[in-house]
């Protein structure tokens, strides 16, 4: 992916990024700012067209946005003029599905994300964590093949964040969806990612790949306990050092 920069030069936001995801895999992507994480996600979602190369989902090449790829944004991007239920059923309404069935599905999903009884609440009255739950339900009710999450828990406080992490794991386990999760937090990437890409900037590329056991552990064990796991701590330190080095390199280049 090549962007023209303001100065007229070109910026290689992504270069030689090749990977395949199996169905039901949870991939987290980590990297310093400016390494092309969001560009990768936007291309996958179909909001951007790659300069060269292609992405396919289930053998079909991606060409523009579509319902089979659901998206959860950092700030929720909820429609604040609608109620919780209206936000959740937005996709189904656009498809003009049967209202009775839709209402049932909305109930189910609100139950799953823990917002039972909040259907008629205006969205703007919800807290940040609850809004993120609505965003999750809104995405999942469409039954997408692939879920793209762009720092979905980034704006939440530590406590809410932990709860939401378990929720994401629970949903992953129950629905068996393929998920790409972009995050700034090393801990979150380790906890939630079955696979983990650490990306490097200029040009944006996959620097290192990990296969991690913690997400599967998280389905049964307590997240706190996993965080104190020796292997978890050492991997975390390794990745943090890696990212620190990259950041310092960027600073050096700029000065």
């Amino acid at each position: 992916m090549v962007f023209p920069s303001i100065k007229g030069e070109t910026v290689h936001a992504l270069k030689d990024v090749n990977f395949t995801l199996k169905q039901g895999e949870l991939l987290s992507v980590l990297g310093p700012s400016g390494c092309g994480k969001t560009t990768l996600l936007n291309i996958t979602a179909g909001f951007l067209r790659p300069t060269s190369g292609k992405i396919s989902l289930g053998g079909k090449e991606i060409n523009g946005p579509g319902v089979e790829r659901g998206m959860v944004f950092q700030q929720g991007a909820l429609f604040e003029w609608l109620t919780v239920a209206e936000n959740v059923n937005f996709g189904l309404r656009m498809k003009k599905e049967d209202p009775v069935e839709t209402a049932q599905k909305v109930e189910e999903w609100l139950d799953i994300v823990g917002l039972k009884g909040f259907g008629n609440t205006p969205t703007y009255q919800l807290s940040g964590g609850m809004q993120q739950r609505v965003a999750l339900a809104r995405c999942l009710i469409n039954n997408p093949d692939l879920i793209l999450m762009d720092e979905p828990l980034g704006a939440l406080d530590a406590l809410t964040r932990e709860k939401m992490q378990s929720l994401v794991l629970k949903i992953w386990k129950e629905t068996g969806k393929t998920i790409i999760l972009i995050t700034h937090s090393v801990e979150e990437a380790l906890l939630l990612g079955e696979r983990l890409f650490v990306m490097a900037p200029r040009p944006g590329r996959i620097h290192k790949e990990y296969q991690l056991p913690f997400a599967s552990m998280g389905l049964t064990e307590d997240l706190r306990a996993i965080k104190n796991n020796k292997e978890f701590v050492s991997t975390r330190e390794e990745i943090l050092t890696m990212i620190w080095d990259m950041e310092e390199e960027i600073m050096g280049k700029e000065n």
Partner: protein
Amino acid sequence: MLTGIITVLLILAIVGSFYYESRIVKTEKIDAVFGDPEKAKGGVHWIIAGSSTILLLWLFFSWDVAKSFYPDSANELCQVAKVEESLVGIKYIFPIDERQLKSTSVIDREIAIISDYKKIIQNSGIQSSDKAKLTGLLNEAELMIGTLTNEKHLDPEVKNKVILIANKITRLKEDFAQASYPGIKSVEEEKERLELLSKQTSWGETGMEIPPLPASKTGLKFDAAAREIKLISEEFFEIKNDNPVFMAQFEKIKSAIKDFKNSLNDDQELEQDYIRQVSKIAGRIARANIFPPDALDSVQQSIVDFDEVQREEQGGLSVIDALLFPGGTIVASGDVCSEQGPGRWLPKPSDTFKIFINLLKPSEGYKNVPLIWYEMMGINQVVGFITPDWIADIIPGKYPVHSSDGKVEPNLKSTVLDIATGNFSAFSIPIPSGHIWDSFLRVILGLGLGIICGVPLGLFMGLSRFAAGYFDPIVELYRPVPPLAWAPLIITIFGIDNSGKIFLLFMVSFAIMVISARAGASGTQLSKIHAAHSLGASKWQILREVIAPNSLPEILTGIRVAIGVCWGTLVAAEFLAGTTGIGFVENVARKYSQYEVIWITIFVMGMLGLLFDIGMRKIIQKTIPWRGKG
């Protein structure tokens, strides 16, 4: 009476607010320090006090308080004003209200002029013999002053006349102090007076004019005194200080001036000009009626004495005048009296209210149209007005043609035409009408058209490069022109009736709505658009479900602004031309100086503007409670 009660209530309300505040302060939470916005909350009693103050100031400065508590005071003050007016001429001679005796100031002025002229003549280029002659004439004119002011030359007859006048004034003063003054009139005269009095309107019925005929005992007294003073003062001004020595001097000067004039050639323009001036100076001194310094002292003293007595006789009236007639008083001019001061242009609330009620009545109204009322109108007329006639034209088929036996069979097309033109019988419903309704309808129609056309275009411009560029010039070129600058052109094209004004308002609101809808559309968060895309919404669905509601706050704010601007533009446009509308009413009232009507229109406009704004605020609260919380 009612005004009096209201005045008292208003004062009580203000005092009560202060008392209530003092009680709140005692029980207030101590944690609200200075600067805490909490301190500015709960001031309903101050709203009452504020409104009461405005009303009270209005009642006070329009002299309605005076009218309510002392309804006779204006009539009595009118008689007092007559006395003051009749005294003005005679007082002017003496250092009573003036600084100097009239004779002294005349002498001062003329002597200065004479010495100035002597210098001018000395420095001029005329022959020295002429110079000497002219200066001599000026000296003689100056001598005339000395003759006039010399007590020795004063005619004894003039002296007697002066004493006579002084005596007359003194006698009037003594009579005036009596309770019985002005004496009993004959039965016929009294009857006539009462008859005239009964025909007289009361204060405020004809605008700012005051009923001039004296109604009370005090009034009669002052009225009679004013008449007498007028006669005495006429007599006084007939006395002239024409003593024989002065007359001889004046004749001499006049003939000398004549001789000098005759000796001049036509080309001696400068000399002619000087002699003309000398002649003027001499004439002025002769006509100024200069008296010796102490000659008129007796008259001056009698006037001062009388003035003192008449002031004493005013008694409580002067207190009322000072306290309840702020900023002015009642002034007499000949036989009529009028209010001079805020009472003149600030109508009394009570009168204003009466006129307002009259304007509301369908039987009176303003220029045959009530302010707001209703009319019974057939449904057919309403339908005919709303439905455009071309609806019948687009129906397939032809209009009926008459048959060979001269009959016309109606068909579908002609029936629809009948309906579209309102050509059928139906029951009537009440439809609002009147000046206010006309203005209101113009605003609503102009604004509605502006919204219907402006919002879609604005959204389009916010989303499309083509629309943003293509329509930008036309909107941006006409928008900065003040709407009223368009008015003459548009009124000429569309006529002075509704269509011109509605089009003008359409232009105003259209530009505002385009700009606000455009800002709303281009301000939509990208992540929301992305979310809608990935939820499978089509272009049209995104426009309707995401961009339109997202632009709603901007659009509603735009409407709120547009209402204000439309309202202002409409009133001004109605000023320019038209036959109905609240602006028209004000313009006509201005031409006829109907201050009450002007104030009523101002009040109505303010209230309607406030109503519009409150309505919009309510709508905004109801429809977009989520504004700024996304």
